[in-house]
């Protein structure tokens, strides 16, 4: 999967967690929590959504790496590469 494809999946999953959000205005370096008022339950739903879409398990200790769009994409890219 390319970086762009992963980003597309991330935004799609995010859209399900925050249906009212305008995803086009997301700043990739700022945390989702600050931009979208996401709580811990939403965030776990987001991680589960990524796991289901991409088949990547995300260890508990790695969850903070999913906090922003840029962080999310680079983390998932690194988790998916070794398997490919």
């Amino acid at each position, binding site marked *: 999967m390319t970086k762009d494809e992963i980003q597309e999946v991330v935004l799609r999953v995010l859209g*399900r*967690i*925050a*249906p*009212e*959000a305008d995803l086009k205005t997301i700043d990739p370096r700022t945390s989702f929590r600050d931009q*979208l*008022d996401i*709580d*811990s*339950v*939403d965030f*776990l*739903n987001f*991680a*589960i959504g990524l*796991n*289901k879409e991409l088949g990547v*398990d*995300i*260890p*508990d*200790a790695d969850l903070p790496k999913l906090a922003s769009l840029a962080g999310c994409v680079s983390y998932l890219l690194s988790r998916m590469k070794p398997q490919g």
Partner: protein
Amino acid sequence: MPSLGADMEAGTLVEWRVRPGDAVKRGDIVALVETEKGVIEVEIFDEGVVEKILIQPGEKVPVGTPLALVRGATEAAEPALAEEEKPAEAAKEPFAPAASPIEPAAIPPVPSKRPHISPAARRRAEVIGVDVFLVEGTGADGSITLADVERAASKAVEPVKSAATAADRQAGLRRAIAAAMARSKKEIPHYYVGTEIDMSRAMAFLAAENAKRPVTNRLLYSALLIRAVALAIRDVPEMNGFWIDGAFKPVEAVHVGVAISLRQGGLVAPAIHDVNKKNLDEIMREMLDLVNRARTGMLRSSEMSDPTITVTNLGDQGVETVFGVIYPPQVALVGFGKLTERAWAAEGMVVARPAISASLAADHRVSDGHRGGRFIAAVDRLLQEPEKL
């Protein structure tokens, strides 16, 4: 029209999920209803066969209005989905439907009979998903024409399209919250107690559990809090139930309402049912699902109508302490603040420990501060043995 919370006065029927002749059983989702709190899936609490639809999509009716008639296996048809008087005589003579409110003569279109409809109209109805039993025929002898089907289809779509805009719904939700909270503050003599709870054991338990679990089975500490509250009710049952008609009605089942703030503004507090009988995994799964459905506006009627106590966790917002307002007719609300590391004095030393502030707002007509204190102490005690939750 079921009451989906003490603050609801009316609802708009959006869509039927059943049609006349369908068999239904307890828990089936039969209709979608729009309220200030979004579109709610309405479950049925009877078993039988849908006899007649009384309210059409787009109609707004007060709480208590029968939506449909359901004929039970051994009884005459009765209004379903509303706490209406049941036809007592009919129940005594189950095979004498004449005593029921829908004696055959009272229903002009016999639901089981196929309506007269032109073949083109029937095909069109099938394609666009129109229930021909609900279409008013304007053709010869009341037969249904293609134009009737088209008209019915546009009517069926209209209410959804013209349903309240987001801003309207927002204003409606605000009004509903205003009514419930004003009633709470006017009627309920609240008292408050609170304590700091050492969460070091709970968090160590969670860290160990979550290290072993795939992301789909992770636990959040909120699940421990909800479970601890439900179990503390065993010690102090007067926190669980309703104040109705000047008296406390305790409830055996523990349905914990979980306050979920909606990002567009406002909040809902749907229930996780029977929390006292569920393990942490089940509670966790239901909480994730509940929050997800609250966000997308698709909660179920039973979740909206029957929480017996509410838990609100405002820790994500960074507040330290919650001073709760009870959601009537409930009699208690437990609030949790932010989980932070604090200087904690224990065994003659000051150490850093994760701690959370727990507060209880309770109805003084039902319990006293002493009992409230016991309740919060029980929550604390339960959280010190997280592996037993």
